[in-house]
C-alpha cells in the first residue's frame, strides 16, 4: 500500500478516476484484501465531511454580514477616490504590522519591559509610520461631508466610537481620509488631515481597553504627540507641528468625541 494507492482509492470514491485506471484498480480490489480494507476506511472517513461543513453554515452570522454590506452607491462614489490610495493604504497596514512587532520587541529587549508593556507602545508604531507619509500622500483626497460620513461609519463600527464629520472639524486642517488599521489585534482607526501645504496630521483611535489617562504631550524627533485614554479607547493626535498645536487640536477633539 502506498500514498499513490490512497490517491487512486480516494479518486475512485469520488468518481473522478478515468475508465482505464478505474478498471485496473477494481481488478486489484477484487484480489487484495488489504487494499479493500483501506478503501473502506477512506470511504468511511470521507462520508461525514459534507454534513460537518453543512453544520458550520448554521454558525454563519448572516444578519451581521448582511448589515455590513455597504450601499452600492457609496461604494461606487468612493471607488474613484480610493483608486490611488488602495496601495498606499495597504502598504501602511503592512508597515504598521511590521513596526508593531518590531517596536514591542525592541521595547521589551531594551527596557526589560514585560510583553504587556509593548501594548502601550502603539504610539511609537503610529509615529514611525506617520513619518513615512509625505505632503503628497493625502493631499489629493478631498471627500465631501457625505463621503466623510460613510468612511467614518465604517470606523465607528470597528472601534465603537460615534465619529461624525462635524465633530472632527479642526481649525487650519482639512479632513483627507479615514481608514482602518490594527495594532496587536485591537482595531486602530486613523483619520488623516492635511494642512494648507498638504502636510499630514493624524488622529488615531485605538480600541485597546486601556485605563483612563489624562492628556499628555510628547516630542519624538520632529513629531509632536498629544494623547489621552477614555472609555476603553486611547486617542492620539500626531504631526510635524509645534507641540502646543498638537495639544490644542487634541483638546478640541477630546471635548467632542
Amino acid at each position, binding site marked *: 500500500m502506498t*500514498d499513490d494507492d*490512497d*490517491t487512486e*482509492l*480516494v*479518486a475512485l470514491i*469520488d468518481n*473522478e478516476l478515468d475508465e482505464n485506471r478505474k478498471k485496473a484498480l477494481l481488478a486489484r480490489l477484487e484480489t487484495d484484501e488489504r487494499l479493500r480494507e483501506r478503501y473502506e*476506511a*477512506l470511504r*468511511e*472517513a*470521507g462520508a*461525514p*465531511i*459534507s*454534513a*460537518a*461543513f*453543512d*453544520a*458550520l*453554515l*448554521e*454558525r*454563519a*452570522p*448572516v444578519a*451581521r*454580514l*448582511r448589515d*455590513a*454590506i*455597504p450601499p*452600492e452607491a457609496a*461604494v*461606487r462614489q468612493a*471607488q474613484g477616490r480610493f483608486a490611488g490610495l488602495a496601495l498606499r493604504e*495597504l502598504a501602511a*497596514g*503592512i508597515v504598521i*504590522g*511590521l513596526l*508593531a*512587532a518590531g517596536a514591542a520587541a525592541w521595547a521589551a529587549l531594551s527596557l526589560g519591559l514585560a510583553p504587556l508593556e509593548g501594548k502601550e507602545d502603539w504610539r511609537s508604531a503610529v509615529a514611525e509610520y506617520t513619518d513615512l507619509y509625505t505632503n503628497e500622500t493625502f493631499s489629493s483626497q478631498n471627500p465631501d461631508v457625505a463621503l466623510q460620513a460613510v468612511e467614518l461609519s465604517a470606523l465607528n463600527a470597528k472601534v465603537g466610537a460615534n465619529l461624525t464629520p462635524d465633530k472632527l472639524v479642526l481649525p487650519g486642517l482639512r479632513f483627507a481620509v479615514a481608514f482602518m488599521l*490594527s495594532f*496587536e*489585534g485591537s482595531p486602530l482607526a486613523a483619520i488623516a488631515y492635511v494642512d494648507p501645504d498638504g502636510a499630514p496630521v493624524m488622529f488615531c483611535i485605538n480600541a485597546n481597553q486601556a485605563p483612563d489617562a489624562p492628556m499628555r504631550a510628547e516630542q519624538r524627533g520632529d513629531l509632536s504627540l498629544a494623547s489621552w485614554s477614555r472609555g476603553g479607547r486611547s486617542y492620539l493626535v500626531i504631526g510635524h507641528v509645534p507641540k502646543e498645536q498638537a495639544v490644542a487640536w487634541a483638546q478640541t477633539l477630546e471635548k467632542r468625541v
Partner: protein
Amino acid sequence: MRAGLEPCLARLWRYALVLSRANDAADDLVQATCVRAIERADQFVPGTRLDRWLFAILRSIWLNEIRARKIREGGGFVDADDALSIDGARDIEMNILAGQVLKEIGQLPEAQRETVLLVYAEGYSYAEAAAALSIPIGTVMSRLATARAALTKLK
C-alpha cells in the same frame, strides 16, 4: 449585485473561516469580498456562476491582503483549535461526529482545508478545483487523499 450577494453570505463566511480559522478575520474577509464584488460588478459575466466568482474574489483578498497582514501582525491563527466548531444540540450524535471531523479538518494545512471544502462541501469537480486553486489535478488528488487519510484516525 447586492441582491446576488445575500444568498451567498453563509457560504462565503464558511470559506473565509476555513481559510483563516479566525472569526474576526472571516467577518472582515466576507465584508471586503462584498465591497470588491460591488466595485467590480461590471466584470461579472452574466450566465456564469456568481458564487464561484465571489469565491475567487474572497480567495484573492485572503492571499494578497488579509493573510499577509495577519502573519505580519503575528496575530493570526490564535484560535485555530476551536475556530472550526459547531454549536447546538439539535442532533447530539451527529453534532459530536461533525465536531470531531471539523476539528480534524481544522488542523490540516490551509491548502488541504481549502481543497477539502471546495470539493466535498461546495461540489467542485477535481478539474474545477484545480482551476480555482491554480494547481495540477494531481495536487488536488493528493491533498484530498492526505486529508481523508488523516480523518481515518478518527474512531
